[in-house]
């Protein structure tokens, strides 16, 4: 029997967005409706996780409908373990984002919620599409709701930030479009599987590799094309920041797995040093940049860039391990680590931005200097914030540790030097995160305004509590996640062993 679960997951939030727009004139109606839709989507996504048969592996929940016969482009969906994990991350985070936006968003609530739900639908579509054109449509389509979210509900420089965000990411992906059309010319269809089987000369692969690299490096974002992210994060409303950090950045890493590695493995190997160098620069240099930030959101934004560098590092270290060292086990570790890091960073960055949102709702400032001694007046909040901060610096027992450790371990098998540089994150990450916590949470109560702050309300408790459970569960017992993704990781590593030129 054909499963329509993925279609349901994509279209439920999008149709929900239309319903919210149509019936959400009252702010509270819009909120409850959106929460209902988001919760329902999350519930529907659970069978995806429980129903994915790891013993079988490969693409499951496959759907196939002819979309544009003239181009042989199809409405083709399917999910392997990695997709399933990212889709569940998306639906989980979306519920918390809707909850987290309950109070802070007061104007045009229905439009905000509708944009969030539409964004959720597009994101699930990106993770589920197995047709390149469909992927591209979702990949670009999600810019529209995000553009609106930052532009309407953002901070003072929101217009600058959102235009920069849109044009920057559009610039990257449109080169990918040319690459996709080129591949279509070669194969006559748009399915990712056919692209992966196509044999391409080294020169062709090189061009395609860079077309994909521009698109996904901007999305991740990697140094030096990361400059849109701090602006977008600082100006975005809390919910927008959470979605951006927790899920949209993952689309870049996901793109590397689905496009760069399988379609252009030889070029990826040849230019792996570029990506690895960019990742190491991001880990160290961006870490230092984070250290000097005075705006909390900007600090976490830079920390996101540094953490996402572990994803790209893991993926391209895997290539070196397979191809030059003949070490598929190490490669699996690297890819698995990159994937765990994606999921973990989704939880940790989402939680950190939610924490900043909680503070911002009370004092309407994000400057570190405006806070101090928050722990004295908001003990519950302080407990959560410290937990997430520990996860952000990669303390064992939290999710932040697992992925980074796996990637460093794998990197060591390739080159101890790379591992050494990457391991700097443990110091730098701890430095900027702990210093942030020290200045904001601990110490004497900073000023009168801080003294009047109230501790978490029930809604904020649920949001941060849910993130905390996820962070700890993944940190203590990551096995369900790694088991889920293992077949997909094996398949990726397997595909890396075959030269295509």
């Amino acid at each position, binding site marked *: 029997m054909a499963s329509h679960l993925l279609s349901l997951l994509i279209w439920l939030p999008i149709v929900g967005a239309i319903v919210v727009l149509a019936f959400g004139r009252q702010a509270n109606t819009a909120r409850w409706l959106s929460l209902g839709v988001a919760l329902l989507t999350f519930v529907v996504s659970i069978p995806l996780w429980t129903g994915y048969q790891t013993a079988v592996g490969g693409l499951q929940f496959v759907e196939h409908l002819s979309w544009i016969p003239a181009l042989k482009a199809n409405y083709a969906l399917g999910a392997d373990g990695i997709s399933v994990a990212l889709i569940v991350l998306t639906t989980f985070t979306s519920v918390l984002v809707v909850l987290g936006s309950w109070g802070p968003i007061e104007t045009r609530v229905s439009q905000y919620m509708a944009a969030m739900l539409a964004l959720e639908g597009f994101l699930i579509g990106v993770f589920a599409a197995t047709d390149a054109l469909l992927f591209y449509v979702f990949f670009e389509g999600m810019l529209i709701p995000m*553009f609106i979210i930052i532009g309407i509900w953002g901070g003072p420089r929101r217009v600058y930030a959102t*235009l920069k965000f849109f044009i920057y990411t*559009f610039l990257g992906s449109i080169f990918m479009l040319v690459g996709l059309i080129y591949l279509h010319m070669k194969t006559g269809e748009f399915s990712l599987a056919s692209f992966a089987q196509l044999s391409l000369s080294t020169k062709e692969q090189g061009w395609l590799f860079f077309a994909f690299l521009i698109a996904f490096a901007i999305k991740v974002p990697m140094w030096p094309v990361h400059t849109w992210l701090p602006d977008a994060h600082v100006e975005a409303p809390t919910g927008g920041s959470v979605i951006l950090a927790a899920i949209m950045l993952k689309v870049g890493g996901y793109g590397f797995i689905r496009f760069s590695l399988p379609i252009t493995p030889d070029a990826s190997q040849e230019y792996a040093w570029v990506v690895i160098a960019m990742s190491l620069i991001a880990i160290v240099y961006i870490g230092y940049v984070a250290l000097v930030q005075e705006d909390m959101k900007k600090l976490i934004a830079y920390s996101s860039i540094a953490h996402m560098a572990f994803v790209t590092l893991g993926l391209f270290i895997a290539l070196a391990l397979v191809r030059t060292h003949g070490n598929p086990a190490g490669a699996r570790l690297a890819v698995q680590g990159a994937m765990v890091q994606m999921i973990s960073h989704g939880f940790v960055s989402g939680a950190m931005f939610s924490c900043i949102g909680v503070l911002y709702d009370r004092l309407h400032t994000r400057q570190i200097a405006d806070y101090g001694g928050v722990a004295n007046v908001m003990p519950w909040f302080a407990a959560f914030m410290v937990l997430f901060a520990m996860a952000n610096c990669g303390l064992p027992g939290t999710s932040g540790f697992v992925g980074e450790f796996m990637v460093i371990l794998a990197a060591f098998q390739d080159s101890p030097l790379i591992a050494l540089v990457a391991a700097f994150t443990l110091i730098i990450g701890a430095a900027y995160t702990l210093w942030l916590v020290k200045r904001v949470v601990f110490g004497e109560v900073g000023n009168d305004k801080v003294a009047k702050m109230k501790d978490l309300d029930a809604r904020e408790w649920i949001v941060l509590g849910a993130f905390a459970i996820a962070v700890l569960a993944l940190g203590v017992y990551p096995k369900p996640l790694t088991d889920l993704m293992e077949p997909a990781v094996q398949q990726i590593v397997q595909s890396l062993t075959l030269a295509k030129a």
Partner: protein
Amino acid sequence: MIQFNPADLATLRPELFLLGATCAILLIDLFLKPAQRNVTHWLSLAALAVTAVLVCCGAPQEHGVTAFNGMFIRDGVATVLKVFVLLTTGLVFLYGRGYLRDRGLFIGEFYLLLLFATLGMMLLVSAGSLVTIYLGLELLTLSSYALVALNRDSRASSEAAIKYFVLGALASGLLLYGMSMIYGATGTLDLARIHAVADFSANSPHHMLLAFGLVFLVVGIAFKFGAAPFHMWLPDVYHGAPTAITVFIGSAPKLAAFGMAYRLLDGAMGGMSGQWSLMLAVLAVLSLAIGNLFAIAQSNLKRMLAYSTISHIGFLLLGFVNGTTSGYAAAMFYAISYALMAAVAFGMILLLARAGFEAEEIDDFKGLNKRNPWYAAVMALAMFSLAGVPPLFGFFAKLMVLKAAIDAGQLWLAIVAIAFAIIGLFYYLRVVKVIYFDEPQDHGPLALPKDLAFRVGLSLNGLALLVLGVAWSPLLEWCYGAFAIVAK
């Protein structure tokens, strides 16, 4: 030698009906009081609708047919273009009524001139000979000159009309000159015969003559399209004409110009496709550059859209560069998408315009989302679609022409095109920014025109950009299929 075959009249049924209906409306309108002008309005729409039905009903299914010794062709391409020409002209009638009434321009001439222009476009896209092309073109452009000058008391309108007329006449002259050269080289006016008898090879005695003829034809076509560097008339005409006329000039004639270019370049001069595709590539790059760069500097929305038209023509020409039917199909698909998008964008200016207020500055759209979220969304759809953001119609049109260019081995052309598309993105986003992120100057809810047909039409037109973005396959198949139905 030339024989009259009564059966030929049946092939021209839609055109003859439209001609008859137009003449009837001309007479009826004479006896109407100004208060009864709505009769003309609905009669004109009905005439277009019946013509569209006639176009579809008798449409050739397998082979195209010709009439009057090949002067007139009725094939798949003609059918598709005519349907969309009639549709967009209908939209112009729907959108323009209230605007014209507010300005004392709600007169019978508007309808008659537009109907004659439509007839000219139908003739143009069905032309089988150089004479028919010229006839159709002049019927279209002479009507357009008069339409632009419809508001006699406006200096801007008159200036635009004069500019349009002088430059348009020059272009027609160049086109005629080119036609005369080709006639001189081949001894025939029939497009298919030109293709058959002309010796396009480089060592033919007529090579130079044909090449010069081709250059003049391309210049004439570029003028009609408004491709750079023959675009000078376009911003002034778009800006100066009453907006109800700009809707028309910005939409349907682009479809007709596509038809004309296809008939002339592929139909007659197909043997020189190597030459003309290079010329069109140059025109495309220039149009993309000038259109997109100049649009950034505009604060007037009509002028901005005029420059954006030039850039879209650049994209459209990419399809021609391919020089195969799939390339033409992509270009036709692009022309259709552009006509529908332009209709929404100009329609929105008409929606916001009131008596004594033109709403043609970008700032007039400030804070539209706070005043009327639905029409803000419609305008945003049009802008995102023009910018080529999926999942909207405009993206797929761009995809098809880019694919046509890449299939033809012109990868560099595709890369130039997307580089300018990114520049273009900026000014479309600026309009969205003004609508969504800026504070309105006037805080009251938007005073919508009472004309329900206009509002419904515009809303559907906007939604069509989204619907066709998701389900564009049937339209694409229709465009592809049209090129299979050719006259033998």
